[in-house]
């Protein structure tokens, strides 16, 4: 399944700094307020194509809020106010004429699984159908491919007609991942995807993510420091709405940090 991915040696070895293409996501001076309360204060960083970008930080640091700003979920969160600019693929997302087209490019996986009360098949076929694909054979291929990538196909291939909301929590989370992949996104946002998933399945999904990054840019928010170490090329550390630092994951874990607070958090000496 994954072998079809066109992986060139140069792509997998490419260092993000020497990447000649402009960053895929540019965040400039981004602030988020709820009501009058500041949640994120003026953060700036870039996310490059084909990397897994980790975001870590204790609860309340604004990680989820940042993801919501990225696919313009602030539009239906009353009181949420976003300032600064986010450019995706070179375009300011605030200026996007059709916000639905923007969201179709961005897959999102929420921390708690949301199996829609549709059949397993319809859950995964929903995004393609929204995009206008009607032919059953085409949908069949997409559904099988996405469920396989989300490491769920073997478990559900005989019960595609049963309700997605009746699967186990961990299965529903993988269904959510399959659904996010079904829209064939350029950008995949994962918000603590593994809190409802067992360790073995988590590892399988992590392997899938490592393959996927060759075609999709991935933003991984996680509370598991070791997960960001295993997966992400670069990692940003957020603390109470401030960006403490962004760096190569490997270097951060070697202790090459600019801010001692990062080291403290990575080593678990942080409350």
């Amino acid at each position, binding site marked *: 399944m994954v072998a079809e991915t066109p992986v060139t040696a140069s792509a997998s070895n490419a260092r993000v700094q020497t990447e000649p293409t402009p960053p895929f996501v540019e965040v400039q001076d981004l602030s988020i307020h709820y009501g009058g309360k500041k949640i994120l204060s003026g953060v700036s960083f870039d996310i490059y194509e084909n990397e897994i970008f980790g975001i870590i930080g204790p609860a309340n640091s604004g990680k989820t809020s940042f993801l919501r700003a990225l*696919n313009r*979920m602030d539009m*239906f969160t009353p009181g949420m106010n976003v300032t600064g600019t986010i450019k995706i693929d070179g375009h300011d997302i605030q200026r996007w004429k059709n916000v*639905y*087209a*923007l*969201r*179709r*490019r*961005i*897959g*999102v996986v*929420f921390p*708690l699984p*949301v199996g*829609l*009360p*549709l*059949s397993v098949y319809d859950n995964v076929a*929903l*995004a393609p*159908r*929204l*995009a206008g694909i009607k032919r059953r054979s085409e949908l069949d291929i997409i559904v099988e491919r996405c469920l396989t990538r989300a490491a769920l196909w073997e478990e559900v291939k005989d019960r595609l*007609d049963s*309700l997605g909301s009746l699967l186990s929590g961990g299965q529903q989370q993988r269904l*959510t991942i399959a*659904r*996010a992949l079904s*829209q064939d996104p350029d950008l995949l946002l994962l918000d603590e995807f593994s809190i409802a998933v067992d360790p073995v399945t988590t590892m399988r999904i992590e392997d899938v993510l490592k393959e996927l990054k060759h075609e999709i840019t991935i933003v991984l928010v996680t509370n598991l420091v070791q997960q960001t170490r295993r997966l992400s090329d670069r990692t940003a550390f957020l603390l109470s709405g401030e960006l403490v630092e962004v760096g190569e994951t490997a270097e951060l874990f070697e202790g090459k940090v600019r801010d001692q607070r990062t080291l403290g958090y990575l080593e678990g000496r942080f409350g």
Partner: protein
Amino acid sequence: MEPQTTDRARSRRERRRGEDRRDRNWYIDKAVQALVFIGGISGILFIIGIFVFITKEGYGFIAETLDIGEFLTSPRWRPTSDHNPTYGALALIAGTTSVTGLAMLVSVPFSLGAAIYIGEFAKGRTRETLKILVELLAAIPSVVWGFIGLSIMNPLIIKTFNVPIGLNVLNSGLILGLMAAPIMTTIAEDALKAVPDTYREAAEALGATKWQVIYRVVLPAGKNGLVAAVLLGVGRGFGETMAVLMASGHSINLPTSVFDSVRALTATIAAELGETAVGSDHYRALFTLGILLFVVTFVINLTADLVVRGIRKK
């Protein structure tokens, strides 16, 4: 391990052991359970009692006098005829069905539309105001609706369509539709509200437009409640008496157009029961109509239940 902690643990254990007796909360719990059980059971008993009563009053008649074939297929309802009374209920069944049918045609799209607007589009103040207005509408007594049918709709229909009489299927159907709509709207809106926001967000994150979210996710998720809302409306239409009596023209007729006057099952019972001698054939024939209404309502509810179950299983 510190001995102090152990002492504390031991005394706590002693105390907890002593707590294993039936205390006040235990008895309150049992009492409440019993009360609720009595409440629930008595509801069921009442329904069975009503059914037994109606059946008892009508049964002898069904067994002895009534020709079931005539009852269901003849439109001649002449229970007061001296030499040859006939008990054909077809015209009454047709009256009730046509009025209810038209009412549903009017009110289902209206109510579902209103529920979707209130539940999914309207925000804040508008939404609250609309909800209060709809609930107010639901509280209008049916005799007032009948009055509106009689004194406003009647002349309006006569003038607009140039027909001799405005008390007909059209009038009573519209009135009944307006009557049923607020309740259906309220129940349908509750059904939509019961759909968790996480479903909406999940669909929105996939790039679904507002309408796609409603059509693809919210409506399927709220299907059971929506079906229930519609069926409640049907039940309301079937059982409504006063407004139909006033607005339908109350004349025995197999309607061929919406401008024909008709007579409903319920209205027949209401209008005639007071004038019959208890135990007479006419009296018992009216109870047979009651049985028919009861059975139809039961079948509607049962169908609804099966439909909803079918949806759930899938």
